[in-house]
């Protein structure tokens, strides 16, 4: 049995900092492993060897390439479906029809329901279908595997990290509770004003429509967001503001698909936390923090798999019930 706590997972999704385990929370066999690792002098030496090896022989980020291919393919399917008139995936990411079957983005649907205060059956079908789909696939999986803004933001992040290394820019982290507040504010605004206020600035919707129906001045807004992330705050939109991410995070909180951490093989190098969009979900990999031999990573995880790629000891793996160590 792996350790997971829905309460902590959701609290951290909403912006609470991860907390250290209280002494009573760690089972004796786990505590023993923590103790062994602390006293094992060879561990640091092993990390050095391993990281030197990695630096000399940079392994390809296989999962990242696959994920980009999927993300591009999904968005391309929307585009080609319209351009070639094959009617396979009609609409945009906010709402669509796949082979005639309704799908609706959960956050867009929520905005419409709150603003319009009336729900037609097609929207119910679309919302339920997408809810089940992303619950199964892990909630924020939508972000890293489908959202077109995520891909641009990843490229902006590469630039940011490179510039930060050259000391040209500096990351300004923010309070993650901002996203929860923004989610509430946008929901309230939709309810009170009767307009889908968030859709006006949603880079996901703007980009999806620009790809399918052609570019417009709305792309300037997306450009400004990316510039903000390159020069001021790393991944600021996805980390601290996007209500879509929070909506899908809540949906995926109880998802069967997740990233699983295996304590015994971990050297605690911290390579995973360096690449993670939401490093607070990997707090458990810090030596002494794990509450079980195996720990399920929390709801804010986008299942992007960068930690799975980055981990030199394969201590982080995708997990689907009955699959063992899936996706290795």
């Amino acid at each position: 049995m792996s350790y997971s706590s829905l309460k902590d997972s959701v609290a951290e999704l909403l912006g609470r900092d991860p907390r250290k385990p209280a002494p009573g929370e760690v089972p004796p066999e786990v505590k023993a492993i923590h103790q062994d690792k602390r006293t094992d002098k060879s561990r640091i030496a092993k990390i050095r060897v391993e990281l030197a090896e990695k630096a000399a022989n940079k392994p390809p980020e296989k999962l990242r390439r696959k994920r980009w291919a999927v993300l591009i393919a999904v968005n391309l399917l929307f585009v080609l479906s319209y351009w070639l008139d094959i009617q396979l995936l009609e609409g945009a990411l906010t709402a669509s029809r796949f082979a005639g079957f309704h799908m609706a983005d959960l956050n867009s649907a929520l905005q419409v329901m709150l603003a319009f205060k009336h729900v037609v059956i097609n929207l119910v079908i679309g919302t339920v279908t997408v809810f089940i789909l992303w619950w199964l696939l892990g909630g924020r999986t939508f972000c890293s595997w489908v959202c077109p803004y995520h891909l641009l933001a990843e490229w902006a992040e590469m630039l940011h990290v490179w510039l930060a290394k050259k000391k040209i820019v500096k990351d300004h982290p923010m309070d993650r509770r901002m996203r929860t507040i923004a989610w509430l504010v946008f929901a309230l605004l939709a309810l009170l004003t009767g307009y889908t206020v968030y859709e006006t600035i949603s880079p996901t919707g703007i980009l999806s429509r620009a790809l399918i129906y052609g570019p417009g001045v709305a792309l300037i807004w997306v450009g400004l967001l990316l510039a903000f992330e390159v020069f001021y705050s790393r991944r600021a939109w996805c980390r601290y503001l996007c209500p879509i991410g929070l909506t899908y995070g809540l949906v995926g909180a109880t998802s069967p698909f997740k990233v699983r951490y295996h304590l015994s093989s971990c050297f605690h190098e911290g390579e995973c936390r360096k690449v993670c969009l939401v490093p607070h979900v990997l707090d458990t990999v810090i030596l002494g923090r794990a509450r079980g031999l195996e720990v399920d990573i929390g709801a804010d995880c986008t299942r992007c798999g960068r930690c799975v790629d980055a981990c030199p000891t394969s201590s982080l793996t995708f997990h689907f019930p009955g699959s063992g160590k899936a996706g290795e």
Partner: protein
Amino acid sequence: MNENVKKAKRRSSQKARRRFLRSVLYGAGAVGVALLGYLPVVGQWLTRLRPPGALYEEKFLAACIKCGQCVQVCPVEAIHLADLDEGFGVGVPYIDARAQACDFSCDGLQCVLACPTGALTHEVNYPHQVDMGIARVVNEGQCLAVQGKGFQGQARGADFTGKLRYAEVDRWNPILVRDHPYDLALCDLCVRQCPIEIRIADCAAGKPPSGDERQCPPQHAIKLEPIDDTGRKRPVILDGCVGCGVCEMICPVEPAVIVMDSSESRASSKGLRA
């Protein structure tokens, strides 16, 4: 030693305060930008002709999920999505009738059927039930019929890319207007191409669209009324007008003699769409 600890503490609390402050500014900034989207709406910078079945403007903006499925099904590609300069209306469909009007060549109101949220209400089944707006004659003096003139050639010139369905040419596929030149003793294009008038004529000939009697419009939409006995006539808009915009699109005069008024009709409609 104690001094150093105090200093470090002060520095870290200062850091936390800064972090909190920039988070609040960032959040407020994003919400602020989103709320700017209200300006074009409340200022009515643009009044758009919306697709068939559209709810009245305020409800329409609320109900539309900005997906463009209506755009994709339209056979004459009359529907476009608005850009960010329309604020809360970004991604919301509109029709520029002069460039390409809705000629109901899909018969079944495909855009209404495609709408996933009911922003284009499913309570409209036939073209004559649509209430997008109403046609208005704006500069009658320029009208060819009013001047007693005929019309020969391409209605909108050789470069016009708009399409119409001419049932006598092709029952199923709309063709370019420029590929269908006219030769008229007195210009009656607005009446001749009116989708409502075409349906009324078909029904009178015993051939309603798809053989469905319910497709027959109960009221006329437009007629040419004699001014005097010299043969001059003027266009008059009637109660059956649904605001589809075909008369505005086909009018050969520049600027068009008839334009769509979308503001009043839908907003004051007591029907399903209000």
